[in-house]
């Protein structure tokens, strides 16, 4: 019998082609590859786990149900981030939600809900001390990101968390290249100022 396809080793374009042929395994592979990046981008935009999951779900449903309209000259990840950014911005416009709760959803009504909606920033740390330091800095930088304007937030996330080039970010967010550069420059500047308060005088970030 012919061996089954090893989807994990295929490039995005090939997996998309298989998804366009109606193979459910290909849809699941695309989900596996991008659920975390998309969810992370949306979460850092809207700052609510439950809402982020709903918006990430909407993003994937939109993309996967229209996979036949995918144009190969555009990167799939750019298409996904574009939709994710749009749903997050739409949500922020509706809710005017710009506060942060790194320790849990602002809609949590009880301690249990706060715990359930919090996320672990230090999952990759090795020791308790590292964990504490990383959590402190992680919390500080997450709070600083949350205080950025939404358009700065998406640009800085795509640049430094997803490692996208300026050109890709401009294409993804439908912004002029110069605007992207300006947003990222201002975001870095604002983050530096915000993190000044976390560091002691003359200290370096861990």
């Amino acid at each position, binding site marked *: 019998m012919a061996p089954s396809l090893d989807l994990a080793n295929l490039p995005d374009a090939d997996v998309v082609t298989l998804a366009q042929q109606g193979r459910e395994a290909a*849809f699941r592979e695309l*989900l596996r590859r991008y659920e975390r990046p998309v*969810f992370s981008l949306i979460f850092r935009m809207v700052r609510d786990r439950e809402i982020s999951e709903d918006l990430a779900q909407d993003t994937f449903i939109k993309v996967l149900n229209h996979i036949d309209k995918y144009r190969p000259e555009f990167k799939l990840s750019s298409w996904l981030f574009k939709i994710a950014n749009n749903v997050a911005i739409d949500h922020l416009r509706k809710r005017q939600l710009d506060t942060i709760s790194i320790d849990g959803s602002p809609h949590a009504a009880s301690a249990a809900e706060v715990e359930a909606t919090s996320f672990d920033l230090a999952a990759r740390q090795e020791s308790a001390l590292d964990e504490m330091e990383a959590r402190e800095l992680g919390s500080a930088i997450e709070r600083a990101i949350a205080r950025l304007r939404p358009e700065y937030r998406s640009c800085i996330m795509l640049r430094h968390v997803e490692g996208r080039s300026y050109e890709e970010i401009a294409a993804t967010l439908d912004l002029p290249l110069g605007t992207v550069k300006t947003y990222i420059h201002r975001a870095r500047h604002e983050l530096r100022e915000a993190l000044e308060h976390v560091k002691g005088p003359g200290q370096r970030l861990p």
Partner: protein
Amino acid sequence: MEHRHLLPDEIDQLLDGEAGFGVAPLQAHVDACPACRAELAEARQVVSALERLPHLAPFPLFADRVMAQVQVFEPWHVTALDSIKRWVPASRSARLVGIGATSVFALLISVAAVWTAVRLDAFLFFFDLAGQRARAALFDAVGSAIANTFGDAAVDALRTGGMPAVVGITGFLALVVLAAVGLRAVLATARRRRT
């Protein structure tokens, strides 16, 4: 360059690791200017902190919930092609054996077809004979069943004109049953492939 500190855009250029004609003087200035070096180091710390941010995971059943709302449609030609591919052996030697066996089978079928064409008259005669006997046997069986159920009068009535209709309806029903069984088998295969 020596008389002024770096502009924010120039710090960004160094931060993004850009290469090119204009970057070397900037780097030279940073090497010589403690203030700009400190400025760049601080900017790098922020970028480094951003790059260390983890990817967050949605809840474990996220993919299932998404897939429940995604319409997966597999075109018929993909199903058909995959069904054929499943019968193709994986190893080269097994494929060669398969091709050989298929070729021999095709050759035998071709020879049989040619031989049948040459002996067509004899075959038509035997088919006609077999058909007559099958028809007679079928009529006898159906007649017996009708006679047992409705009596001899019903058999006489059918013989005068109704028997061809009965045979036609029986054949049609058999075809419908066969089509339903075939469709069910195809759907079952498609379901198995999706899971």
